[in-house]
């Protein structure tokens, strides 16, 4: 029996160990008796205050924090659910599918409004809009677009100044990018027209919001579409170079979600972490200790704009649907 566990442990640690993490950091006392392995798509810088707050409150636990892309997170959890205790991701659809497919354990013992959780196993804790980030210099003298329509017009009016200087997510790589794109497409036809216009301008495709923000700030590109607002607004240092725009025609707001892996050997510790995250997050963000926009559970989200935690999230993960969507998207953006 013991050998069996050894083999299982080796097999499980195999893919996790071989993984190339975007980032990996330890929080808390390295000699603490319990180690929680957190797999997250959130940049360490943004999440560190929450993690530090946790290890301060519960000194007996230390955290091994791994950062990976949303699609990778999904892969890792599906192949070895025992290798992580807590999974955090911005790709609501992938997280939802994980929970629906039984990869999330129930966490009971606290009140979470209906709209912010699913089956007491998937919990939303932030509210983050998709934004348009523009380089201030590029729009000097011209009106900054407030809607997608404005943006399309601006791009069409000055195609030469925007050629190869517009960027958005590569939805084939980024789970969050795919989620934003599909939700946009669901809401309005404008999305497709914008993609076509961007495609005509030889759009740059990015894996992540951070890179887009950097490039807009540096002036490499002038406009980035569907950038994670929370990341952009966190960059106080770039306030002179970039402007973050919440589109006024319609917004797409994502909720970052957390789940306890069903394979975790330490469900109690993982549940404690989740409870702490949900209960303290709100307080931390009012203290401006973190720039992650934590959910205010007392206020239900605006009807349309926030993506709901519901089975329909499975729709665009369907093989046929995503094939079709990606084909259309490629048609539009890759010229």
């Amino acid at each position: 029996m013991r050998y069996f566990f050894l083999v299982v442990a080796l097999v499980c640690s195999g893919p996790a160990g071989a993984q190339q993490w975007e980032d990996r950091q330890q929080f808390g006392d390295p000699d603490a008796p319990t180690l929680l392995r957190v797999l997250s798509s959130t940049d360490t810088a943004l999440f560190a205050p929450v993690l530090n707050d946790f290890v301060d409150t519960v000194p007996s636990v230390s955290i091994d924090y791994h950062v990976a892309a949303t699609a990778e997170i999904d892969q890792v959890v599906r192949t070895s659910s025992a290798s992580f205790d807590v999974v955090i991701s911005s790709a609501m659809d992938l997280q939802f599918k994980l929970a629906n497919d039984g990869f999330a354990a129930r966490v009971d013992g606290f009140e979470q409004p209906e709209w912010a959780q699913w089956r007491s196993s998937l919990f939303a804790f932030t509210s983050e809009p998709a934004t348009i980030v523009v380089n201030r210099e590029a729009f000097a003298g011209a009106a900054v677009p407030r809607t997608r329509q404005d943006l399309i017009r601006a791009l069409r009016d000055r195609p030469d100044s925007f050629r190869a200087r517009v960027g958005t997510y590569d939805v084939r790589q980024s789970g969050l990018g795919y989620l934003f794109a599909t939700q946009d497409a669901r809401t309005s036809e404008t999305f497709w027209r914008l993609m076509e216009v961007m495609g005509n301008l030889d759009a740059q495709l990015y894996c992540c919001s951070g890179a887009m923000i950097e490039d807009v700030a540096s002036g490499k590109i002038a406009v980035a579409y569907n950038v994670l607002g929370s990341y952009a607004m966190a960059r106080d240092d770039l306030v002179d170079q970039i402007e973050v725009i919440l589109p006024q025609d319609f917004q797409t707001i994502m909720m970052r979600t957390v789940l306890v892996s069903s394979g975790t050997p330490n469900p109690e510790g993982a549940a404690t972490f989740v409870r702490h995250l949900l209960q303290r997050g709100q307080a931390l963000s009012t203290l401006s200790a973190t720039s992650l926009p934590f959910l205010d559970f007392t206020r239900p989200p605006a009807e349309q704009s926030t993506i709901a935690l519901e089975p329909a999230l499975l729709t665009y993960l369907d093989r046929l649907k995503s094939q079709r969507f990606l084909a259309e998207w490629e048609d539009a953006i890759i010229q």
Partner: protein
Amino acid sequence: MTSALRSSTSLRRRLNIVLIGGAAVLALLIFLFVRHYTTQIAQQGQDNILKASVSSILDAAVIRNGTLEIDFPYAALSMLNTASDDRVFYAIYQDGALLSGYEALPPAGSESFNTISRTGRFNDVPVRITSAARRLVTSDGVTVISVAVAQTQDALSLTLAGISRTVAFFGAGFFVMATALSFWASSATIAPLNRLAQSITRRGPQDLSPVQKPVPSEMAPLVASLNTLMGRLDQSLRQSEDFIAEAAHRVRTPLATVRSHAEATLQRVEREENRKALRSMVRAIDESSRAAGQLLDHAMITFRADHLERQSLDLAALLRDLVDRLEPVAEMKDISFKLLAPEEVHVLGDPILLQNAFRNLIDNALKYAPAESVIEVHVTNGASACVEIRDQGAGFPPAQIDELVTRFARGENADGTIGSGLGLTIAQDVAVAHGGTLVLQNREEGGACVTFSL
């Protein structure tokens, strides 16, 4: 008499068992039926949504430029959102091969084009699976698309638990109400029966009059036969008393005639053996007439004791009068009376009965005491009035003293004396009718002592 009555299960209990048992069965049936019915409705609700989901996926299937496209709407899965966040699984097959969705979820059989809902398991959880299929025509021929959508049943079971609770609550309420009602019904039904029983129990022992109060029609036959039975009883009692009195009376008169003839004949006959025969004849006649007289008295006593009418009377005066009247008989035997009595002793009783009783007792003393003796009659007025009659005879035969009061019982000392054995019986019946006692004793200094206390 009542304790010997064999009673089967009480009517009230039987009624209660039937009513409450019926109510319980009914409540259970209602519960099961309503739950079954609502379960079906609730299940139908889920099935309908699953059906809509399946058909919206199937409807999205089109052949465009020779390739199959199923661009099903967001709503196809969105509509499956439930309050309990039920898990959702689906699978899309083309000609039996999985196109997309969850592999282990097979459709109900691709040849079935009707929508089918069934309960099954998927990934080790119980689910409701709805599936349907559709034929599409391509340039190469016909292809069959089948779709299965499955959903866990958490919301449904929650609804059902709620329904079960409510229905159980109503069932229990119904049962409690029905139970209260059945108690009320049974006591209302039994009440007239109890009233009848009470009214009959409250009657005096001699009241054999028919029941007059109205009774429920179901009880009418019973009460009617009870009334006839009592009527017959009353009549036959009266008849037998009348008969005894009449018979005794009829016997006594001719006996008196016969006796006077025999006496007269005795004066005239000389021969000793004839005289002896005549004497024993006279004696037999005396016995018979005494018996007839006592029987008549006994019948009268029984009747009056049953319909006892008490009146205030002076016991001392009654005995004084009695002693006076018996004085001549006593003188014939040289016996003297010694009456010790207070001025007045007031009691409530039937004077005729009391007189008869004391006459029998004094008569006994006269009969069984020797000549030239004294009979003491002692009246006292203590907690209860008491009369003691003492003689100076041989006393009661000790071996028989307990049986002498029974009917027709005579002691061994009675040989040669005329009597019927009813005297003490009469005295005791009178004492008992008045709620008193009769005690026979032999005195230490000799002689019988009878104590009659009221």
